[in-house]
């Protein structure tokens, strides 16, 4: 549904789609490159690959988590599938992310990173990334709807992921290689961000099996959540309206 008119609220409108992620990148750049003097020569590109993909995940999931509760006016009046609200947020963020990624790919190209066959890996990677967002958005929306207190915890969790997913540090630079594989295995966000970098910066393919596993797991969770939310539609409405 065409709900993107929200952009008209701000003076710069659609420009904020690109501006906000870029400002985030700028903030991190100032802190880690200018103040803390990162060792990497390619830090800006490295940072952009990680941060721009991470913002997609964190913003979509955080917004989607509050979406059922935010729409309780509508829920009080129509019996509609409750998964619609988080999905609307996820879809909206997907459109926004197309613009952001287009910008990212253009700047990589300008910075001299060649386009190679490895870029085809972006297609499955984007799909898995999307599935992961859908799964987390649905789970988050249900949790916040049933127990409102989760809306305090989720932003905190996002900050935790921000620090642990290797956005401004390289997972592969860790002193202990076992720790590297542990981080990549435990934290799917870290794996996804690393995969973007492997493809975009080093033209190499990510671990296909690992990618499939994350995609399959996310899909399973998403399907289960859709089913659960259909079954408990009236309970969710009750919770959204009263709690």
């Amino acid at each position: 549904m065409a709900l993107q008119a929200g952009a008209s609220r701000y003076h710069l409108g659609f420009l904020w789609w690109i501006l906000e992620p870029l400002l985030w990148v700028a903030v991190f750049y100032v802190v880690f490159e200018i103040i803390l003097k990162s060792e990497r020569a390619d830090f800006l590109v490295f940072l952009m690959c990680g941060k721009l993909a991470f913002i997609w995940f964190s913003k979509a999931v955080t917004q989607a988590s509050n979406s059922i509760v935010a729409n309780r006016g509508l829920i009080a009046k129509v019996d509609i599938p409750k998964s619609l609200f988080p999905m609307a947020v996820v879809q909206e963020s997907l459109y926004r992310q197309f613009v952001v990624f287009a910008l990212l790919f253009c700047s990589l190209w300008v910075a001299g990173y060649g386009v190679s066959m490895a870029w085809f890996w972006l297609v499955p990677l984007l799909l898995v990334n999307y599935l992961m967002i859908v799964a987390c958005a649905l789970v988050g929306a249900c949790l916040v709807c049933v127990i409102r207190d989760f809306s305090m915890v989720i932003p905190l969790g996002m900050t935790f992921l921000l620090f642990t997913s290797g956005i401004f540090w390289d997972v592969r630079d860790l002193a202990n290689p076992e720790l590297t594989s542990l981080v990549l295995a435990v934290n799917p966000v870290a794996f996804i961000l690393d995969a973007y970098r492997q493809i975009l910066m080093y033209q190499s393919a990510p671990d296909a099996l690992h990618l499939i596993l994350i995609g399959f797991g996310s899909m399973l969770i998403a399907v289960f959540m859709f089913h659960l939310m259909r079954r408990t539609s009236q309970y969710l409405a009750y919770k959204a309206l009263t709690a």
Partner: protein
Amino acid sequence: MSKAARDVMLELVDVCHVYPSSKSTFDHGQHRVLDKVSFVLYRGETLGLLGRNGAGKTTTLQLMAGILAPTSGKIWRGPGCTASLLSIGLGFRPDLSGRDNALLSAMLQGASRKLARSFLPEIKEFSELGDSFEEPVKTYSTGMRARLGFTTALKTHVDILLIDEVLSVGDASFRAKAETAMRERIGGEQTVVFVSHSPRQVEALCDRAIWIEAGQVSAEGNVQEVLATYTSGTV
């Protein structure tokens, strides 16, 4: 009266509904909104639902529309029968134009995009919004919102129409027009449940009335009789 011969569209049997009464404590404080409410809705009739604020009228409608499930008791719905709540400003998005909001509302009530689009000229004309129809809803006055909301809801078609206080807003001339339009729809085969504080409106529009007081059915039956007990009981 030949009511016994009519089809039952919807039936509530001993319906109870409970809301938690406080959210900040961990006790099991409960507020019983509806307590063993039972009544029947027949095909083609207009049923008036009377009651004071907080008596449980809106909850009853939400239960009938299937938005909420009753805590206990049963709601029987005729096979394949849809019930829809007609209410003002169905999730209006203030940043979108009146046209887009009307489209969205109609789609949320179950119309396809194409069907919803075909309602738009009619909605624009009936609501008398003119050029404001293309403006964002945030620029509308309360009365204009009410016009848009009422008109949009009026144009959608459902088996059971549940109306919650919609006629109590708007200026006098629009209200008169809205009532006439309502009566036209009610006159047909439409089954309607109509919630109001106003005895006058219930008298003008309804075939039968139910008075809900403190979560229980206080009076039921002929409009005149129920209204007589209602007005004597509340004044």
